[in-house]
């Protein structure tokens, strides 16, 4: 869908997904790494367990559909080559510290002077300027700074993160949207612009607007394992199953109440609660709890009843009932169960990607969307270090083979 466009991807591990999204959609994405390879290639896990720059599964996860070149941007010759590449690019994506590329003469103003149509996307922890723009960051620190961290975890322990780093993914996906908004505008004006994406702001969206609670009113969410606490009420999303856990959206009101009603009908039919419990006003139940008409202890009793019931069923039984009865229940799945998913198999989700350098092929998570036009294809496995140096420097930029050899000898490429 984006096949006419060239993308230069200068990102560190803080922005890799952005270029991959554009590459999945057909853009020609060139990943630019320092000689020897990106630091992101040192991130675990590794295929076969042994650290190797071409076997990082974190690298594989976010670099398919890209070609790869190496270039030392801290040398004059490296910068000159980058300026030549940027002159013919439609998008440039970077995630260095704010101002780092400007110091190299590779900031937006410098590159736009030669290529005014360039859409230049900067992803940074806190944004390009401001009191925290120079802060040191990691995934955990950004989840703390942006709000989601305080809301997750057991109440008697520190807040806890998802152990696959999430913060930069939120920002990188956000950056792809921002890049395409600027691209849409470019079709009219012929001009590019500088796009400034903040990880902190992107991550704040994962609080479901609760970061605004303090400005709105007195009620605030606090964390509790497998749920959330709002004022005096403890909402529970993780429930026991005979063989693990399930998630249940046990909520009330005009949208959720009917699901809860159907769930309680099942609980009653199997003899785990009386008719009075089944027949509570599940639409108006929040109001009853907040007004005190329904004691919180009674709500706790209902939850304990439900937990006793779900603990007698397997994850599979509960999920099957959810489909048959219209309930909001899903299994808490491991990656092993995910890979065995019948739904994903029926949709032919998984993609087999050949890694000839290892003599093997592997299953990758499939397209993030299906389309009737120009469907997402996995055209290229993630590049090995410098895999396309010759193709791009000689074949496309017009360097003589001996010039490339000299750059290699000087460790600029």
């Amino acid at each position, binding site marked *: *869908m*984006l096949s006419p466009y060239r993308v230069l991807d200068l990102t560190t591990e803080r922005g890799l997904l952005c270029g991959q999204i554009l590459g999945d*959609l057909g853009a020609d994405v060139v990943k630019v790494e320092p000689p020897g390879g990106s630091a992101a290639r040192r991130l675990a896990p590794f*295929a076969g367990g042994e650290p190797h720059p071409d076997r990082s599964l*974190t690298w594989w*996860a*976010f670099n398919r559909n890209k070609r790869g070149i190496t270039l030392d941007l801290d040398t004059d010759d490296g910068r000159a080559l980058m300026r030549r590449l940027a002159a013919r690019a439609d998008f440039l994506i970077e995630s260095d510290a704010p101002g780092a590329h400007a110091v190299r003469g590779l900031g937006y103003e410098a590159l736009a002077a030669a290529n005014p149509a360039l859409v230049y996307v900067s992803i940074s922890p*806190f944004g390009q300027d401001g009191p925290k*723009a120079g802060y*040191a960051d*990691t995934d955990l620190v950004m989840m*703390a*700074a*942006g709000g989601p961290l305080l*809301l997750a975890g057991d109440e008697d*322990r*520190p807040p*806890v993160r998802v*152990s*696959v780093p999430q913060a930069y*993914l*939120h920002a990188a996906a*956000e950056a792809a*949207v*921002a890049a*395409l*908004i*600027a691209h*849409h*505008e470019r079709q009219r004006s012929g001009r590019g*612009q*500088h*796009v*400034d994406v*903040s990880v902190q*702001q992107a991550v704040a*969206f*994962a609080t479901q*607007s*609760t*970061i*605004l609670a303090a*400005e*709105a009113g007195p009620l605030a969410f606090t*964390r509790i394992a497998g749920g959330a606490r709002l004022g005096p009420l403890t909402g529970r999303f993780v429930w026991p199953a005979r063989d693990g*856990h399930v*998630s249940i*959206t046990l909520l009330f009101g005009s949208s959720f109440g009917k699901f809860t009603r159907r769930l309680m009908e099942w609980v009653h039919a199997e003899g785990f609660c009386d008719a009075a419990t089944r027949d509570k006003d599940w639409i108006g139940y929040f109001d009853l709890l907040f007004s005190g008409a329904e004691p919180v202890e009674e709500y706790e009793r209902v939850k304990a009843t439900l937990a006793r019931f779900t603990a007698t069923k397997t994850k599979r039984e509960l999920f099957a009932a959810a*489909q048959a009865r219209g309930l909001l229940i899903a299994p*808490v*799945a*491991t*990656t092993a169960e*995910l890979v065995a998913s019948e739904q994903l198999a*029926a*949709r032919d989700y998984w993609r087999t990607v050949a890694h000839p350098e290892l003599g093997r092929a592997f299953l990758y*998570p499939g397209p*993030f969307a299906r389309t*009737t*036009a120009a469907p997402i294809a996995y055209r290229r496995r993630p590049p090995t270090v410098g895999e396309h140096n010759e193709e791009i420097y000689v074949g496309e930029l017009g360097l003589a083979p001996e010039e490339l050899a000299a750059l290699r000898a000087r460790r600029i490429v």
Partner: protein
Amino acid sequence: VTAPAALADVKILDLMWAIAGPGATRMLADYGATVVRVESSQRFDVCRTVGPFVELPPGPESSVLFHNLNAGKLMLTLDLAKPEARDVMLDLVRWADVVTESFTPKTMRAWGLDYEALRAVRPDVIMLSTCLMGQTGPLADYAGFGNLAAAVTGFYEICGWPDRDPAGPFGAYTDYIAPRFNAVMILAALDHRRRTGEGQHIDLAQAEAAMHFLAPAILDQTVNARTQGRIGNRDPHAAPHGVYPAAGADRWVAIAVTDDGEFAALADVLGRPELAADARFATTAARLAHQEALDEIVAAWTRARDAAESERLLQARRVPASVVQSSRELCDDPQLAHRGHVVKLAHPTAGTTPIEGSRFVLSRTPARVADTAPTLGRDNQYVLETILGYDAERIAALAVAGVLA
């Protein structure tokens, strides 16, 4: 001279509800797209019933979440269960560049508004359908929210402590991921149509898109047959790496030391410079092997002071650290204030409501965030008269038939 809004020429007919869909069209509305949101007062958007609320007890216009997801859109109330509503919808399809919906597949079919029906009146229509599990497969019509997709795709399993049940990320987690993919697809499809004249149907399963945020762990499974479990706040590359107690009740500071230089700086700040030379802590590998001892040393220091003080002292030496910020702190955060992240807008009954601004800055065509979500029915007249050119008689007939409800 300010440039016209980036998406001033984009027209979206938006039937989406909850978070994953409306979050996408909100981003596009910020940059000038005309978004006509269709909602029935007979079937409220679930977000109207979810807080935070600007007034208690909450009414349908009181939800900050709803305003945050629908700011800057137009609103037409339409009861799609009524047969006359379909004609209005098809007229809007002829007007729109993009039609978006986030129901289960059977819903649009039942209304006679599936892709084939839309294409019959608008051959180059772009239709985005986004539901939990996708338009096909045995779970196509499984209705659900982002907590369920987060559970079934594996986020819950790897968020929590190894000795405890899964804690899971907060809320409807995959709903916070999907809006970006939805917005990207709308914009890419517009570019494709501009160049080729071809419209399309986009099938975006919230679960499938969100799985890309777990891709390293999924590849660990498919490549190494290794199933990752819960590891608390540990990290394979950094130590100390955790959330440490601060002075006060439920106060925490996140600290992550990624290399020897940062560790030496941390040791200095702690007043224990000798730790940098201690064989137990001299390298990342050594620190990873002695994390418990390290955590005790760090926690003893953090516990004695305010979280903000720890952040300040550590960041002054470029050690990655942050207060684990609360809503109050985020609303007062000087960096977010600098970025204009929290915007206060006039609210029809509650005075003002806070919403979030755009999460990125476009240097030449910045976002414009000036209006809350429209109240139910606010733009019925504008949409029917100005956009669709209906006369007063036709509009009155629709109202009398209860279609505009």
